[in-house]
């Protein structure tokens, strides 16, 4: 399941709902991304996440489908926020439930790596040096490239 929302999310409630009652699940992995107060050497006072409504949801659904095709997963959740956030705020939750931990770790890592390069979000940072649009990182391209099909 995927969701795009302005509101914060409750990690405990989201993870508890993941595959609830499915006793084939032996492993639940999760990733939470948070706003840091420092970015590329500048203090960050706030961050605004812009996205492309409609395309965002389609892209996240595609990413979930790709993970489910690659691994045997019992449940998948992606929740991504948009709008104005502050340091310490949660940005994104990715969680995976599977029978075994190897798959759950790989799928969770894959989901966030692909999301970074394939979902239409853009970050605007308010720093002590003014506003600036975050630039895409080559690290993120490399992280996503790890998952390219051979």
């Amino acid at each position, binding site marked *: 399941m995927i969701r795009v929302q302005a509101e914060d999310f409750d990690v405990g409630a989201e993870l508890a709902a993941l595959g609830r009652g499915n006793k084939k699940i032996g492993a639940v992995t999760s990733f939470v991304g948070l706003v840091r107060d420092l970015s590329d050497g500048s203090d960050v006072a706030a961050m605004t996440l812009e996205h*492309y409504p*409609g395309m965002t949801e389609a892209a996240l659904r595609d990413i979930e489908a790709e993970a489910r095709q690659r691994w045997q997963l019992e449940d998948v959740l992606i929740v991504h926020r948009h709008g104005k956030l502050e340091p310490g705020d949660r*940005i994104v939750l990715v969680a995976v439930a599977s029978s075994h931990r190897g798959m759950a770790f790989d799928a969770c890592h894959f989901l966030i790596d692909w999301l970074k390069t394939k*979902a*239409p979000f853009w*970050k605007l940072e308010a720093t002590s040096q003014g506003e600036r649009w975050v*630039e895409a990182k080559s690290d993120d391209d490399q992280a996503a490239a790890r998952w390219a099909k051979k």
Partner: protein
Amino acid sequence: MKLNLVYFAWLKQSIGMGSEAVDTPANVATVNQLRDWLRSKGGGHGEAFGKDAVLRAAVNKAIVSDDHALQDGDEVAFFPPFTGG
């Protein structure tokens, strides 16, 4: 043809609007040609599309390559690489 254009991130700020409806001349058939035509308009468009910066495009909310053929009524979006997550 008639197109609905959508802009995001610094491109939106540079052009000064998030979306606009345009009617393109006959020589605009692909995403690349649309980009050239927008740059040729000058002003905010000229500046934004003239920059030496990576821009990606989506047609009807799906990523496309520069030689993608446009159709009347398409929603065409331009934006820098994604930075979510």
